[in-house]
Every structure is written in structure tokens, then in C-alpha cells.
């Protein structure tokens, strides 16, 4: 895109700057609309599994429900508790929302269609996702209220625990693909298994890693069955309890943008990203963007499915799963995968 703006007679720096801003808007604005639609989809799937109708009043099939909710929230009064730490209380939802958008910079939507094609793409995703916890902690502390505080402590412990095993899982992927660049990881999956299946997931050594990554990404985004931070039966609404109006909506949007991000990571790291599922020339006629979107939507359906069917974990069970099951198993797989790759001379 930089070359287009260069042709308009700008200097290189300005062309780059304008192109980057355009790229950010091109990703962020459709993302916001898709978050609104995905909330609707989530409610519909959830309702269908509970044999209900779900939202069906606003617009055809209730399609405009999220926009109606957005308008309602927008018109509400912003209430700041008098005992709250005002500055941090207001910054916290902004942090959550911003961080949820930031990681999308390195997600490849198609061959070359990525905002920042950096060498350290995967590390960037890890770094940004480790920032996500601050929105929750700040909200919990600044609310000056018991339930949000409990929620904040749960959130920080939970996210740190699962990030450790996510790190090890990603090391397995990186070992196999030999790069931290997200596009490079996608390309490394071309014809990965038997020269025909695109995707690390069909690899018997990496399939367990993908299952663990899916579960860890549920924990990382605090979705059911790991939604202990906003367990409504224990903590009212967790860290969001004291929030109202747009601040509340910012959390809602940020949370779903994070869920979509985790779906995109599942698709990119293990299911071949924008590559078609099979390495057959006919399938490449469909644009890569469509394959990517289909995979993301599939994973979102899985997320909703799990939310609708699996009961919430107890806190000690969550910690046990993270530290006593995932951490040793992922560590073992790092050893197995690197040993196997050395044995077959992958790095030679």
C-alpha cells in the first residue's frame, strides 16, 4: 500500500505513515463490526443449544441486536463509584480494548496481507497477550470493591499460569516451522503431512499440542469453562461489577476481540491460516482470505459450543490443570519434538 501513496507524490516516510494508518483502520473497523456480529452469533448458537430462539426481535432474525445493545449502552449514564480510584478506573477498559486490537497487527489474513510482517510476529503476540491481564487487574483494584478484587486476583493467577504452557506449545510450532514470522509459519504448513494436508494439526506430534493450545486459549480469554473471573454465581460479574455504560461496552468488545484473536491464532498456527485445508490446486482458486475467515468462524463456533455445554471449573481444578497437567506435558513435547527433529535432520 505504501507504493500507492508514493505514486500520489508523497515522500517515502509520509507514504509509509499514511499507509500504516489506513492499514490499521482497514483491520480495526471491520473487526469492530465483526465483533458486534459475533456477539449475535454467540447468543444464537448458545440459544440453539439450549433449545431457545435467542435474539430475534431487532431487525431480520435479530441481526441488529448487538447494534441496539450498543446504542442502549451508549445512552446510559457513566457511573463512577465514589470510593473508586478514578483515573485507573477509567483507564482500565481502555487498556483492555486497546490491547485486544493491538495483536491483530501481525495476523496474516492472506498471502502478504498483514499489517506488520515482522520477524518476531509470534513473540509480539505473546507479549501483547501478556499485557491483556492489566485491564482486568486495574479494574479490580480501582473499583475498590470486594468482588472485582477477587476477580482481578483470579485473572492474574490464571493468565500467568496458562501463558507458561502456551509458551512451550508455541516453541514446538516454532521448532517445526523454523521461524517466528506468522506468514512463515503459515507457509511452513503447506503440504505438511504426506505432502497434501496443509496444517500442523494433522501431524501426530503436534495434534496434542493443538488440543492443549485450544484449551489454554479458552483459559487465556477467560471463556467458559474457565470464566472464573466473572463467575456470576460467586462474584456478581467479577471485575466488571462496578462498570456501566461505554466502559462496560469496552470490556465486552475487548473480550470478544480477544476471543476472535485466539480463534485466528488457532487457525494460523495449527490449521494452515489462509491456506486451503488440502494442498490441491483447485482449492487455491478460493481466495486465502475466505479460508482464513472460515477457519476463524469454525473455531468461534467451537468456543460457543464449549460455552454452551461445559460446566465451569473450580478454581483449584483450573490451577491443577495448568500447572500439573499442561506444563509437564508441554515441556515433555518440547523435548520429544526437538529430539525427533534432530533425529530426522530437520535443522541440517
Amino acid at each position: 500500500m505504501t507504493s500507492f501513496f508514493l505514486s500520489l507524490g508523497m515522500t517515502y516516510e509520509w507514504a509509509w505513515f499514511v499507509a500504516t494508518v489506513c492499514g490499521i483502520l482497514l483491520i480495526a473497523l471491520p473487526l469492530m463490526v465483526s465483533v458486534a456480529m459475533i456477539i449475535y452469533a454467540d447468543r444464537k448458537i448458545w440459544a440453539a443449544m439450549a433449545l431457545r430462539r435467542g435474539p430475534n426481535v431487532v431487525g431480520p432474525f435479530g441481526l441488529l441486536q448487538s447494534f441496539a445493545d450498543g446504542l442502549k449502552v451508549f445512552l446510559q449514564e457513566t457511573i463512577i463509584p465514589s470510593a473508586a480510584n478514578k483515573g485507573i478506573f477509567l483507564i482500565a477498559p481502555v487498556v483492555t480494548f486497546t490491547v485486544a486490537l493491538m495483536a491483530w497487527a501481525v495476523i496474516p489474513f492472506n498471502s502478504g496481507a498483514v499489517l506488520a510482517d515482522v520477524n518476531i510476529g509470534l513473540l509480539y503476540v505473546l507479549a501483547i497477550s501478556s499485557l491483556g491481564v492489566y485491564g482486568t487487574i486495574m479494574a479490580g483494584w480501582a473499583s475498590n470493591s470486594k468482588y472485582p478484587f477477587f476477580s482481578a486476583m483470579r485473572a492474574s493467577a490464571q493468565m500467568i499460569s496458562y501463558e507458561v504452557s502456551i509458551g512451550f506449545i508455541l516453541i514446538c510450532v516454532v521448532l517445526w516451522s523454523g521461524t517466528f514470522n506468522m506468514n512463515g509459519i503459515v507457509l511452513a504448513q503447506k503440504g505438511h503431512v504426506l505432502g497434501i494436508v496443509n496444517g500442523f494439526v494433522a501431524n501426530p506430534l503436534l495434534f496434542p499440542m493443538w488440543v492443549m493450545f485450544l484449551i489454554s486459549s479458552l483459559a487465556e480469554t477467560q471463556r467458559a469453562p474457565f470464566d472464573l473471573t466473572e463467575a456470576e454465581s460467586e462474584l456478581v460479574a467479577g471485575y466488571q461489577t462496578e462498570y456501566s455504560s461505554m466502559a462496560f461496552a469496552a470490556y465486552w468488545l475487548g473480550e470478544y476481540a480477544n476471543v476472535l484473536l485466539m480463534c485466528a491464532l488457532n487457525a494460523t498456527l495449527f490449521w494452515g491460516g489462509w491456506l486451503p485445508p488440502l494442498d490441491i490446486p483447485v482449492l487455491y482458486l478460493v481466495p486465502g482470505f475466505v479460508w482464513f475467515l472460515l477457519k476463524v468462524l469454525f473455531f468461534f463456533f467451537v468456543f460457543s459450543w464449549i460455552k454452551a455445554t461445559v460446566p465451569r471449573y473450580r478454581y483449584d481444578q483450573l490451577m491443577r490443570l495448568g500447572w500439573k497437567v499442561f506444563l509437564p506435558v508441554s515441556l515433555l513435547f518440547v523435548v520429544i519434538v526437538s529430539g525427533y527433529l534432530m533425529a530426522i535432520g530437520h535443522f541440517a
Partner: protein
Amino acid sequence: MIHVIAFYLFAVLTIASGAVTILARNPVHSVLWLILAFFNAAGLMVLTGAEFIAMLLVIVYVGAVAVLFLFVVMMLDIDFASLRAGFVRYFPFGALVAIVLLAEIVLGIGAYRAGALELGSPDGTAATPAGASNIEAVGGLLYSRYLFLFEAAGIVLLVAMIGAIVLTHRQRTDTRGQNIRKQNMRRPGDATVNVKPEVGKGVQL
């Protein structure tokens, strides 16, 4: 142009948030400003081309260390009056630390004015092979020339970790934990019986 703007933005924010970290009255605010300082330092690293170090700074310091910091500070019940009470008593020690830090800064500026530092191997050749990415260059050095130091650092960390576990571990005998394996092995047939009692008769348990 954009480089310069970005540099001054990150540098000013790093110094300003570092200063506010010290000046803030509330310890939680201090930690949050510290996190902002870390983040901007990572931005400076990216500008110098050390993107790997920048990401590690964010992952390790912002993502893990600062969270634990915040975690501890948040739960402290701080009494500001008693904090200020010991001021005179601790003043000499604090002054000593301040003098040492000042001396280090002066020394650092003096060394900076003496000319750029030659990073690399003792014989003066550049350490980074041309064309290699950040991670490849760091990995290549760590696992070849500095292998011994790298492994020694790993062993030190391992010992520290085991030490911390040993020091804080305590065997608790008064709790009844859940044996997940035993629960999963249990089948409905072992736990339930289907009986059809006659009317007016009880159930034998």
C-alpha cells in the same frame, strides 16, 4: 523524521514515567508507572533494531515480573503515616544509595562521552553475522561462544527455583485433596444400584 519523533516520544515517556514511579504516593500507581517505563524502554529497543530484546522485555518484565509486583502491592494494607515515621532513621542509608546511583550516572555519562562502546568479540570483529535476524544472531552466540555461561546461568536459575520451592513448601496433613484419577476411574455401575422396591417396603442400603 518519524524515527526521531518516535525516539523522543519513547525517551521522554520513559524518563517521565520513571520519575513519577518514584514520586507517586500510592504504591499501586508506582507499579503502573513502572510498567509504562518498561513498555517505553521496549519501544526504544525496537527503534535500535533489537526487537528480540524488546519483546523479551515486554514478556518477562511487563508480562510476568510486574504482574507479580502489582499482585503483592495490591494486597498490602499500607499505612502511610507509619511509612513516613521511619524517614529520619533510614535517611543515611537512603542518602548512601542515592550517592552511589548518582556516581554511576556520572560515570556512565563520562564513559559515553569517551566514545562509542565496541560490542563484539575481544578481537574486535563484529559479533553479529550480516543478514542474520535478531533471534538467529542471539541464538548463534548463546549456543556457541557463550554456551558455558548460558548453561551456568540456567543452573543458577534452576537452583534458585528449587531453593524457593523447598523453602516455601510445607506438607499439609489436615486437608483432604481430590484424587482426580480415582474419580475418573469410577463408573456409574459402582456407585448406583437400580432397585424396584415393593409397595410399603423400604430399600435396603
